[in-house]
């Protein structure tokens, strides 16, 4: 009789809470469409791993399928790398090439990463973990996962959930920060449209150049940037359309599916239901606020010297959350002045943010071990 009730006897209230959290993630994915590609598998993985005895992880000394996936794809860092190839194949840097000056907003809006690392250190996290938490500010899920895999495997679950949740909450977070930091007059600034011809050779050469340069400046970042740029080269070369489409679709989908459910498997009650998780979720929000603020302040700083002023909202679009951030800026610009079209500049800054976040992530990977 005892054996028949083994599932009930091995169940704890903590596991019940985690299953509830898993259900919330699934609800957010389906009902609210918050990053469903990731939150749905993470939510289901969370349920699986918190069912009695957690046989998906281990049973009678043998690894369960989620443990096998974790060892194969997370411990080896393979899944995030494959995701980067897929993301690279989806990236289009053309808007950035048309207005390369916007590239600097892609750096300024990474301020949140480093500010959050400081705040996380103040809250008592060790340097490696603080760095992984700060990377939530990259507003780039795969980068956050990759750095967390390297530096803070135990916190992979909360860091991933925070990264993807706040990315989907960009339309709620950014307008509040933008409004609090800019005047109505600033938000109404119109910017001239610069539309340069972009040679195909630049689109093809750029991923190779980026890989070479970053490879010399921060060799530790090569897996991250190299795989992103490899995916981009597949797309831009125009001669391997089949591979490019495979990277964008099949590879991206399969890896996202496996990555999501495997991240869910790290969300066991004893690891997740801690004060640290709450701190990480709070710090994720801090990171996004600092990112937005960093971009806006940089635009305001440039305006001190510029004759043709920059709309400071463009600075906020320098985060990597593409295309949500650019959309937020365009919508706010139209709300203030129906004739103000900032979409080109905002997309340009947003694409630059995608590159900036990976570079910042690569630098964190390169510099943190040196300081340990």
């Amino acid at each position, binding site marked *: 009789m005892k054996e028949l009730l083994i599932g009930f006897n091995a169940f704890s209230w903590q596991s019940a809470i985690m299953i509830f959290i898993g259900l919330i993630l699934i609800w957010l994915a389906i009902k609210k469409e918050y990053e469903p590609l990731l939150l749905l598998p993470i939510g289901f993985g969370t349920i699986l791993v918190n069912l009695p005895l957690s046989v998906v992880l281990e049973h009678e000394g043998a690894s369960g399928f989620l443990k096998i996936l974790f060892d194969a794809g997370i411990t080896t860092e393979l899944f995030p790398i494959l995701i980067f190839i897929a993301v690279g194949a989806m990236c289009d840097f053309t808007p950035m090439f048309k207005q*390369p000056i916007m590239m600097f907003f892609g*750096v300024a809006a990474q301020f949140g990463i480093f500010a959050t690392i400081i705040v996380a250190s103040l809250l008592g996290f060790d340097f490696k973990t603080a760095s992984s938490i700060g990377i939530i500010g990259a507003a780039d899920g795969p980068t956050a996962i990759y750095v967390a895999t390297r530096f803070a495997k135990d916190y992979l679950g909360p860091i991933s959930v925070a990264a993807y949740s706040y990315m989907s909450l960009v339309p709620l977070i950014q307008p509040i920060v933008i409004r609090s930091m800019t005047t109505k007059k600033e938000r109404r600034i119109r910017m001239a449209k610069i539309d*340069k011809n972009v040679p195909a050779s630049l689109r093809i050469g750029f991923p190779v150049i980026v890989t070479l340069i970053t490879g010399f400046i921060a060799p530790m970042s090569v897996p991250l940037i190299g795989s992103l740029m490899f995916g981009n080269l597949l797309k831009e070369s125009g001669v391997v359309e089949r591979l490019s489409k495979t990277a964008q679709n099949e590879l991206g989908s399969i890896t996202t599916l496996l990555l999501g459910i495997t991240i869910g498997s790290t969300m066991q009650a004893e690891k997740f239901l801690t004060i640290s998780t709450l701190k990480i979720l709070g710090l994720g929000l801090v990171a996004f606020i600092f990112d937005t603020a960093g971009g806006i302040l940089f635009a305001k700083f440039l305006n001190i010297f510029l004759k043709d002023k920059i709309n400071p909202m463009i600075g906020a679009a320098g985060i990597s959350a593409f295309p949500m951030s650019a959309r937020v800026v365009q919508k706010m610009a139209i709300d203030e002045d129906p004739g103000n079209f900032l979409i080109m500049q905002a997309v340009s800054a947003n694409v*630059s943010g995608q590159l900036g976040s990976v*570079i910042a992530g690569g630098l964190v990977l390169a510099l943190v071990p040196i300081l340990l």
Partner: protein
Amino acid sequence: MQDIIQFIKNESALVKSLFLMIIAIPITFLVQLIFYLIIHAWISFFNKSKGKKG
């Protein structure tokens, strides 16, 4: 530089974080600046050679 890094290594996570911010943001700017100059030069060269052909 080696002395500074050695000094930082023995400091707290907070000092390390501050140091990381101080060096990482300028390096990120520098890297983007290099990319900016390359893109700018590439497009200028392309437009110039296109203009000559025209």
